[in-house]
């Protein structure tokens, strides 16, 4: 996607809020994008052939060192570029995050029905005229140059990749080795290059302490994300989140398998304290199970509501700012019970490298409007006083805890004995583990 290196350490932000009653459980915590290192987030608004792309990054180095090079399918005019609001992308992240929910067992003695249910060091650009002359001499055409917000943006086309790569390197965009073939391929497919650096003067005037997301609107049949340049950095696997906002339904990749992560699984109570570890381990295991070649679905939902909510749905105003051009921009807040506002959100999570993802991601919009969410459930046993004999209840809780331990081991690949050691079994009795057949661990 971009030659952009982010050196942020993973911050494990588990957000715990006061819970509100909901049919699908009380919301406890979410696994948002800050769980993973070097995560890029892209919001893709798509309807017919109109696309608005918002690129957010977790870059936290010197802003003078920030640069981004993105292949785009068409010429981009000044009005097609915007600098967005980082908070809205964070809100979208929170709203679509996989979530942990909890239920409390009722008093077993009462009877009522329970409800279930590449950047790189970039020098400041030289003066405009001199830059254009130098560009022309290398076969590079600067089709446009804009300053938008804190960014200096150029739209480049070129007759040959050699000149373009030399020009980019001369101008402080450090292009990784091996980029020639990829750049060549994009140029032959008639793509332009959108390159941006931070204009330090504008940035200090605006006073932002972080980089705001760049937004580009264009019309093209290509519904894809170019990831090939990003795979050239020999920095191992990269995490990418794609939030697709569409009118009709769920978005999936047409050239890679899109897989739903296991969901609605009951896990032991202690997962509440280690939800981040749990989610990372589960994602690792699922990635390996798909031979590291799949794109994972983490959320697919009508934007009008959620249950349980990890965050409120985005307002019409926020959606409009993300580029959802078909919703009214009158700034009216959308309430949780408002009818569908014709925006369907899909959250895809992909861990990619060159070996397993040789080709750019190509998407299609489907007619599928079935809601899906990554939802993991903990059930707290009744811990209050009981006025009757609770032996039977406690035995049933222990059975459930055994089952939860096994499910957690299946999801994450964690050792079942370690898991059992962390569980506080009901009644203080640790049930004996089921006797394993002698061959179970014979070959590991």
């Amino acid at each position, binding site marked *: 996607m971009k030659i952009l290196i982010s050196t942020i350490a993973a911050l494990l932000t588990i957000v715990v809020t006061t819970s509100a009653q909901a049919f699908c459980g009380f919301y406890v915590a979410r696994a948002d994008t800050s769980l993973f290192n070097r995560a890029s987030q892209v919001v893709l608004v798509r309807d017919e052939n109109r696309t608005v792309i918002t690129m957010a990054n977790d870059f936290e180095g010197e802003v003078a060192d920030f640069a981004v090079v993105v292949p785009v399918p068409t010429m981009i005019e000044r009005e097609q570029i915007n600098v967005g609001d980082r908070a809205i992308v964070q809100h979208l992240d929170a709203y679509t995050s996989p979530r942990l929910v909890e239920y409390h067992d009722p008093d077993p003695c009462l009877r009522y029905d329970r409800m279930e249910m590449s950047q790189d060091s970039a020098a400041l650009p030289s003066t405009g005229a001199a830059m254009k002359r130098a560009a022309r001499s290398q076969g590079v055409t600067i089709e446009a140059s804009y300053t938008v917000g804190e960014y200096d943006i150029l739209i480049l086309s070129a007759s040959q990749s050699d000149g373009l790569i030399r020009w980019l390197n001369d101008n402080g965009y450090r292009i990784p080795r091996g980029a020639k073939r990829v750049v060549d391929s994009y140029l*032959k497919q008639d793509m332009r290059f959108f390159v941006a650096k931070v204009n330090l003067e504008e940035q200090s005037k605006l006073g932002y302490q972080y980089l705001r997301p760049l937004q580009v609107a264009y019309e093209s049949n*290509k519904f894809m994300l170019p990831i090939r340049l990003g795979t050239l950095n020999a920095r191992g696997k990269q995490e990418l989140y794609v939030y697709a906002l569409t009118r009709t339904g769920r978005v999936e990749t*047409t*050239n890679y398998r899109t897989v739903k992560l296991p969901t609605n699984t009951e896990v032991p109570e202690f997962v509440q304290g280690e939800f981040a570890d749990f989610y990372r381990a589960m994602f690792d295991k699922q990635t390996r199970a*798909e031979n590291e*070649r799949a794109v994972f679905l983490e959320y697919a939902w009508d934007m009008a509501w959620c249950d349980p909510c990890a965050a409120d749905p985005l307002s019409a105003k926020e959606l409009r700012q993300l580029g959802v051009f078909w919703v009214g921009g009158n700034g009216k807040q959308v309430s949780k019970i408002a009818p569908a506002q014709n925006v369907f959100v899909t959250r895809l999570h992909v861990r990619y490298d060159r070996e397993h993802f040789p080709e750019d991601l190509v998407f299609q919009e*489907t007619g599928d*409007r079935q809601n899906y969410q990554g939802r993991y459930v903990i059930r707290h046993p009744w811990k209050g006083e009981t006025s009757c004999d609770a032996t039977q209840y406690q035995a049933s809780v222990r059975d459930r805890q055994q089952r939860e331990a096994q499910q957690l081991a299946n999801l994450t690949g964690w050792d079942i004995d370690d898991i059992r050691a962390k569980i506080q079994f009901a009644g203080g009795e640790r049930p004996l583990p089921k006797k394993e057949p002698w061959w179970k661990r014979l070959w590991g």
Partner: protein
Amino acid sequence: MKAISRQLDRLKDPRYYQIGVLTSLVCFGVGALDFGIHWQNALTIVATALAVQFLGTLYAQLPRFDPLSPLITALSLTLLLRTDEVALAAAAAAIAIGSKFLVRFRGKHVFNPANMALVTLMLATDQAWVSSGQWGSAAIGAFTLACLGFLVLTRARRAETTIAFLLIYASLLFGRAAWLGDPLAIPLHQMQNGALLIFAFFMISDPKTTPNSAAGRVLFAAVVATIAFVIQFIYYEPNGPILALIVSAPTVPLIDMLMRGRIYQWARPDARAENQIKGVY
């Protein structure tokens, strides 16, 4: 003895093998791979296809009800068509089999039934789509073997269309990669597509909707492969092969007029003589 040999004769019909492969794929897809195939849709499509074939048999006054062809169409549809609406799944099966009886030219139906249904639904509603990327590499490997086995078993009779289509489409993809300077991994990845294989082995291969002469079939495959490539890689629209087949279908009567050949009969000695009078369904 005679009865047994007649039964064995029947098994020479390649459609039994096709049905076997497609059925195991559907089971694998529903059970193991999470293809997004709803079993309700699968049942609805099969039941509707058989019912419409039965009605069509009465309408066209055919001597006997033949369940094999509608079954293959229904299974291909089940594998390719995705929808959350059972009614649309039923509509797809009805359009597919209905078109066989209603859209005819010179004793042959013009459009491939499953193809006709897919394109009609994709154009008419936004509730139907084809998930071409939902096959893991393991599934594709197994599927390729099964398809190749099919070629061996039938000694590649009438398989020119499939082979020519795959070869021409592959050479276009590899040619494009060579021109762009892309690594081989990219065209190889593009060929490893489950929907492409189903299309090549079970849709374009249909002898009833392809030209009668071998040379004509190769020419037809070349037309479909080229149009598919243009749709997919020049206009960047998904489902290139499926759209290309429907666009190319009207060229079949034209090719038949230019290159003479024999109308295909499924290997079924007892039904052959009678069916020929009425044309082939």
